[in-house]
């Protein structure tokens, strides 16, 4: 089976600064792949290279079987993306946002109408359907963003810190949505700050200063580092000197 994502020595430099330094990994189809790292470790940059927003400096990578240099527009047909910055139109209503993105992805009119009903119903957002997005709570916005990012049934969805600033209950609901999507065969590539969330992932990679410092299942990583939680693993990797207590 062809992996959903492959990266081979993928590198991005901004002038003298190397944001992503020769990262190599594979993500299998249907996998929930956690992409961890401190702020500024290069997670977002790596993700932007994979989804065709940023051109790599060197190395190879393919997403859904397409090359990240030559076939970015083909990649874009097969992926969904939820960026760190909230990116729905705040001055459009929930319904209008769904309509717009459905239209841009080329869904037929009937399918768009169906999605509006399905999506708003599924999220329990009936009362917000005609509310401007700027007026709804953040948790709702994030769940809506995710639903819109996977509305066109992409093979792979990239989530850049989707649960940042969201309360624990909503985070839990959010992960239920991720699991549901994965169970339908979607590959999930997710960055997060919350170490407890990394336990929900099938495999986890931890980036430190542009490099992948560790990559395995959460259980194997904990064993390897003799840690009781992913939090410990993360601290050992990112602040090795302070460890030893």
């Amino acid at each position: 089976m062809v992996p959903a994502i492959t990266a081979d020595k993928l590198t991005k430099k901004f002038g003298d600064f190397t944001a992503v330094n020769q990262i190599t990994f594979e993500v299998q189809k249907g996998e929930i792949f956690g992409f961890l790292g401190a702020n500024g470790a290069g997670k977002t940059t790596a993700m932007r290279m994979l989804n065709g927003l940023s051109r790599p400096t060197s190395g190879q990578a393919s997403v859904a079987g397409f090359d990240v240099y030559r076939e970015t527009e083909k990649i874009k047909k097969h992926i969904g993306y939820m960026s760190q910055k909230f990116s729905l139109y705040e001055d459009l209503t929930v319904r209008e946002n769904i309509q717009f993105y459905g239209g841009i992805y080329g869904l037929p009119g009937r399918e768009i109408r169906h999605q509006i009903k399905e999506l708003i119903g599924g999220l329990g957002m009936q009362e917000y359907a005609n509310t401007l997005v700027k007026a709804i709570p953040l948790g709702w916005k994030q769940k809506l963003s995710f639903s819109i990012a996977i509305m066109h049934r992409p093979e792979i969805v990239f989530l850049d810190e989707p649960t940042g600033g969201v309360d624990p209950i909503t985070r839990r609901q959010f992960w239920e949505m991720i699991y549901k999507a994965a169970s339908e065969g979607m590959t999930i590539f997710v960055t997060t700050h919350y170490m407890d969330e990394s336990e929900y992932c099938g495999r986890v990679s931890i980036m430190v200063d542009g490099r992948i410092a560790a990559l395995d299942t959460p259980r194997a990583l904990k064993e390897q580092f003799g840690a009781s939680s992913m939090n410990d693993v993360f601290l050992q990797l990112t602040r090795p000197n302070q460890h030893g207590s």
Partner: protein
Amino acid sequence: MRTIFFIVRKEFLQIFRHKVMLPLIFLMPIIQLVILAHAADFEVKNINLHIVDQDKSQASQQLISKFQASRNFNIIGYSFSSRLAFDEVQSGDADLFLEIPPHFYRDLIRNNKASLQLSVNAINGVQAGLANAYANAIIQDFNGEIRTELANTSAGTAPGGLSITYSNWFNPEMNYKTFMVPGILVLLVTLIGMFLSGMNIVKEKEIGTIEQINVTPIRKHQFIIGKLLPFWIIALVELSIGLAVGWLVFDIPFVGSLWLIYGFAAVYLLVVLGLGLLVSTFTETQQQAMFISWFLLIIFILMSGLFTPIESMPEWAQAITRFNPVAYFVEVMRMVLLKGSGLMDIRQHCIVMLTAALAVNVLAVLNYRKTN
């Protein structure tokens, strides 16, 4: 096509949702048109004139009554001393004074010549020049009459001489509003179009929604066309409102074909909006886009031939105006509306505009990058 429709619909939803933008787009230009058309008038009226009449003769009275009859002059005082008149010019109450010396009439009859003194406050050079010219015209006129009178009384034969008559084609009453309104309308449509389109893509960059668009399989030309169309429609509606105001309020003659005006405007707006989008693609913030748009617009407007004739610019400046779309539209507006020029008369303008529209928009599409 469908993708473009979805972008256009989204843009319209956003524009009509902003309660501040709507009046700004439609009301402001009309107000500006009405105000500016009255203000941008090169005719100098109500020049304050002080007359020093030291002759108090039949001839001096005749001259003064000529000034009284002129609508350019406003006689604010008579006196016997030039000292008082000078004080009034000094204080700004009078713009100029005319001094009729003692024995003016006597000299005129005896010596067949007499002199008058005209003193003009020349701080505002344009006004001074015009005031001088108006006054001279009146004095010439007076001169002609008085000579005829003198000739009749003394010799009984009319003197020879040439009299010049003017005929002003296409704007017979020399009405500045007729001349200015079509041009001002061009400016307003340009301003709105360039700013709206210039702010647009860069605004999506600022709020981050552009990322979400760039990660979709949308084609670049679809995006640019989708961004262009809404403002193109708004600008054409704006032009229509402006033309209606020109017709109803200012009695602008519509000598030529309205279709031709709209046809040219349609292409012209592609140039202006494309330019705005181009600015939008290579700037990162709305301030930058605003600054560059202003820079371009100031040059376009001042070199458009609206306020100063292009023919009197230096050679090199005239060369620059050949790249100024505003200059073309101002000229076409005046040619078609006031003179009734047809397609053949403005074919050169059309070719230039079509080429520019193509070039600018291709550049905008190329310069818009989905992958950085």
